[in-house]
């Protein structure tokens, strides 16, 4: 078998593919965080909780209302996004003039409440969400056996991520959003409803987290802790990409998924800290992140 650095090529290709799958989740989640931070200056610690809520919305929708996976993919992010808008209107809005630390504390508290309540009602061991029929099964790539569902996760995530990037960086709506971050008062003077814009931005970022949750629900057991472990990694991804940089969040999400995948082969014990080591290095060498602006 052909080898590179003593590792068989088949193994490298396999880990590359799996890394992209995990990276897809990182990218989707860090994208939402980056949008919220970049356009609103809010450090949204509740992001993991929204991801968990998305998965639970899909699960409960299926169990109690018979809503299938494809409908859940649209409905769950809408429902959770609406929750996000309510949070922004009722709570977050009141903290805009203050130190960003207050927003962080508020969202952190919300995350604890959401996770604690889900734990109270559903317990710790989690529930299975079935893989949709049309995506069941797997393809043999010769170097590995890839479940169709995982391939779909990569595709869906890449499309959504670059779609979001396109909207924010290349359309008129995106230009308005970016203008709101530069000078909200001036934009308001032009007759743009800035508070509405901010609420919609938060709702959109939250909906992205919920979408990641729905995508994840057939892959892992749906449980109250699922967002907890992920959100710290995702924050590191955002810092590496550069706080607030949309493209940085997407690219570093995918790349770090792959790096983590290779760590799992080379030195598995370090696989849960490698992202943080890279974060420390990036902060030392390039404090604004790989794609960040001064």
């Amino acid at each position, binding site marked *: 078998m052909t080898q590179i650095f003593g590792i068989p090529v088949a193994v490298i290709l396999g880990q590359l593919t799996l890394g992209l799958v995990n990276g897809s989740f990182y990218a989707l989640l860090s994208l939402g965080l980056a949008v919220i931070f970049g356009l609103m200056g809010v450090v949204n610690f509740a992001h993991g909780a929204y991801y968990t809520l998305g998965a639970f919305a899909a699960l409960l929708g299926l169990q109690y209302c018979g809503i299938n996976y494809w409908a859940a993919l649209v409905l769950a992010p809408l429902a959770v996004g609406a929750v996000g808008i309510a949070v922004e209107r009722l709570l977050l809005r009141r903290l805009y003039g203050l130190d960003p630390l207050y927003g962080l504390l508020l969202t952190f508290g919300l995350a604890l409440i959401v996770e604690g309540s889900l734990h109270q009602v559903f317990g710790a061991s989690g529930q299975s969400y079935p893989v949709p029929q049309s995506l069941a099964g797997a393809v043999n790539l010769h170097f590995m056996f890839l479940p169709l569902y*995982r391939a779909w996760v990569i595709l869906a995530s890449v499309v959504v991520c670059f779609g979001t990037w396109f909207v924010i960086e290349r359309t008129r709506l995106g230009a308005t959003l970016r203008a709101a971050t530069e000078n909200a008062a001036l934009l308001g003077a032009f007759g743009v409803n800035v508070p509405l814009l901010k609420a919609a931005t938060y709702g959109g970022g939250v909906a992205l987290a919920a979408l990641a949750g729905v995508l994840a629900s057939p892959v*892992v057991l749906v449980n109250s802790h699922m967002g*907890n472990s992920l959100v710290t990694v995702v924050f590191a991804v955002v810092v590496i990409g550069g706080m607030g940089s949309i493209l940085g969040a997407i690219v570093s999400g995918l790349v770090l998924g792959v790096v983590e995948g290779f760590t799992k082969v080379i030195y598995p014990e370090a696989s849960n800290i490698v992202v943080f080591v890279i974060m420390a290095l990036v902060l030392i060498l390039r404090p604004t992140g790989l794609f960040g602006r001064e």
Partner: protein
Amino acid sequence: MRSRARTIRLAALIVSCTAGSAASGASDQVVIGDIDDMSGVYADVMGAAGVEAINMAIADFGGSVLGRKVVLLTADHQNKPDIGASKFREWADQNGLNGLLGGSNTGVNIAMAKVAAVKKVPLFHIGPGGASLTNEDCTAYTVHYVYDTVALANGTATAIVNAGGKSWFYLTADYAFGTQLQAAASKVVEAHGGRNVGAVRVPLGAADFSSFLLQAQASGAQVLGLANAGTDFSNSLKAANEFGITRTMKPAALLAFLTDIHSLGLGTAQGLYLTTAWYWDLNPETRAFAKRFFAKVKRQPTMDQAGAYSATLTYLKAVKAVGSTDPDKVMAELKNTRINDVFTQGGYIRADGAMIHDMYVMQVKTPQESRYPWDYYKIIKKMSGEEAFGPITGLCPLARK
């Protein structure tokens, strides 16, 4: 961030605990404690429903012993050894604690065993797996009650090697419990003429197992030994199914609880071999207990929850028999008695603290075989306590080989 979350939860717990035990420490009470993972990955294995089981035992015993009211204190150790040990010490010093039940997590229980030895408070290890608790970490005041890594390996690994699964690759949780479980299984596999091909150590609570599973597959081994537990076990088995690894490798659950099988569903878990100390559907007595338990928590009891019930009864019976809560007298009585209840028949506590009782090798039913809710296991083999837990190793100074 997580430590802050834990501090807040701990603060809430301390408030509720001190409120409930304001009058304790007085000699008109017998105080039992339960320190367990109440909010983390193992919270369903024993957890809050385990507290319910302990309360059932206290009620079944009559609510009092030696004319003193039996009081239960509970705390969440959050899988942190320092929290478990300091809570235990606090109760022993301030609340007149007489006996303690230790829930899940080997690491926390090792820390609490050291406190038991110093404070001379009998400690029943209910949830931890590590066999070191009756070997190098044994004390004169600890009992390992439900199962250990040696018994799990003797059950599951022996059954699978004998069924033709000769070469093994392990997916191991990277902490005391996982490494002890892998070591025990490796020993059994070699003793029965099998071969250990390799292992990968996975950080606790990994989000994704597929990379590790591909390494297992590349090893060419016949058996995938899952030396992990709880959510880690469920998520790794789920991914093994999805990636078609279960077509070429036979998965072996070195520790699986009823709640794990319930989460996964029989479609994913079917055919799996596992070892358990207890099952709700063994006989009319276990079914009657399970029915009462189900009425309270809407789930069937796990072996740990039944074990917590039994250990509470066993402790109270010993206190009644010696007419005192004196720890040395109670321990002497415990090691000199036979345990006959819904959990076990003819169980006994060995000098090293291991409670020796029958264990069962089970196979998970197919969806077609399962006829009613929670009908998950069929018995492959009933092992005697001696066969399951093996002979005294001599590593514990209290017990000669």
